[in-house]
């Protein structure tokens, strides 16, 4: 059922009236709720111009929001590159013929997918300094945490993608004398990467949102600078949170739109990844063909 309007008939006169009544009733209820929220904000003096005025000053943007946004994008960018590398290495590792490679690789991937990101960031930031006898910067704590978690998710995505390439592809490659390494690198990975592109991009949205956890280890990203520090100066935490949320929503909507555009563009690819990838899978690849990214952080 690709279109949802198969669920109901084309409305006749009575249905039109009923839908209109429902629209009005629900619309009024919604407006009432919004008005109630508005009055509550008003009672708490949240609409005072004093609280919103800082956003018209350039210093607010150049000193707080834009540096925070840049730090967020930097952590997300570095994290994405590293987790792609991690994902490819561990996907290959898990598909290796040698059990002493595939079993440890599988354990690493399963482990890091099951451990909360926050726990890893805490360990890297507070625990690792005791081991290496030196401090770990907040930036690397966030980036390494993001890499381990998202890299493991991507490893599973790549593995599912590689396994979904039609068997004839690798058979043909073996038949012309390629080694396993060559088959993987030259035949399977390019096709798998193309098929998994939408999932990879939607994982980037997850990764970008997860950088907000950097707030907890005082990494100066958007939540830290644009909400925490800015509100400490002006006492306008709700206004700051709303502005920061809008920025996150705009960036992530653009990325989601990009993922959808890629999906449509690669719609003519040779094969599609089947809906259920692993039979007994704790796989993150969802069923139903939709790219429902894992709702981490």
């Amino acid at each position, binding site marked *: 059922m690709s279109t949802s309007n198969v669920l109901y008939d084309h409305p006749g006169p009575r249905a039109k009236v009923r839908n209109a009544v429902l629209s009005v009733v629900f*619309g009024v209820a919604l407006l009432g709720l919004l008005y109630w929220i508005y009055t509550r904000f008003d009672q708490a003096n949240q609409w005072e111009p004093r609280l919103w005025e800082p956003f018209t000053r350039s210093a607010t943007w150049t000193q707080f929001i834009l540096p925070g946004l840049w730090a967020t994008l930097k952590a997300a960018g570095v994290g994405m590159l590293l987790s792609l590398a991690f994902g490819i290495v561990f996907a290959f590792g898990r598909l290796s013929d040698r059990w002493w490679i595939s079993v440890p690789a599988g354990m690493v991937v*399963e482990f890091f997918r*099951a451990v*909360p990101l*926050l*726990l890893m960031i805490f360990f890297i930031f507070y*625990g690792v300094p005791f081991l290496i006898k030196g401090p770990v910067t907040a930036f690397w704590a966030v980036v390494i945490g993001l890499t381990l978690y998202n890299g493991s998710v991507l490893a599973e995505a790549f593995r599912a993608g590689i396994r979904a390439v039609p068997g004839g592809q690798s058979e043909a490659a073996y038949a012309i004398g390629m080694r396993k390494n060559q088959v993987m690198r030259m035949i399977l990975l390019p096709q798998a990467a193309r098929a998994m592109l939408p999932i990879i991009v939607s994982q980037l949205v997850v990764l970008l949102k997860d950088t907000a956890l950097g707030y907890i280890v005082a990494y100066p990203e958007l939540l830290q600078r644009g909400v925490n520090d800015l509100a400490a100066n002006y006492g306008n935490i709700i206004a700051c949170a709303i502005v920061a949320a809008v920025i996150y929503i705009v960036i992530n909507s653009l990325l989601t739109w990009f993922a959808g555009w890629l999906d449509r563009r690669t719609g003519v690819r040779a094969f599609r990844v089947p809906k*259920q990838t692993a039979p007994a899978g704790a796989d993150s690849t969802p069923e139903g063909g939709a790219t429902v990214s*894992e709702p981490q*952080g």
Partner: protein
Amino acid sequence: MDVFTDPENLDAFVSGFVWILKLTGASAVCALVIGVLLAAMRVSPVPVLRVFGAAWVNIFRNTPLTLVVFFCYFGLYATLGLSLSQELDVNIYWLGVIGLSTYTAAFVCEAVRSGINTVPTGQAEAARAIGLSFAQTLRIVVLPQAARSVIAPFGSILIALCKNATIVGTIGLVEASSVMKDLLNSYGNAVILIFLVFAGTFAALLIPTGYFFGWLANRLAVKR
């Protein structure tokens, strides 16, 4: 090795994970109810409902959970004065449940909607042909079939929810990750052991859950 033999630390460890389980349980129920309602709105014939469902999903799916939870505490509680309990930690717990369930509901909604898409068109057409209304079609024919195909995504969402519950620690609930942070700071000689115990507990909870949902999804899958 004496970190976990100290009964005080052991109590903190247990209560940390009890908070995680409580957060997961309450939020899972709320998110499931809200998410299914949102999915029903998104496929309904009433445009206002569709817009509302789509707006909810787009707003909460694209906002970091940390920011949502942050807003629940500083916005709803500290500024607007929404207090749900006299006790401080119980109050934070419910604020966390609000944040986790509004956020997770967006993902449940999308999973249900993609589940509805796996039900063959003929099912809904036949339901309409025998005169069922939209609500009846959805409730009696489409959702029960969709439910079987959303078990695997629900498993992923539940696992992510349990991991996300640690984020409530950022607004001051002493859950597992906060306990781990405190232990790391006071026992610098046993950091690897501490991490392995906490991470291992999460893995021991979540990896079997993943396999269970995989098994269940396979068992209940509609063979077409």
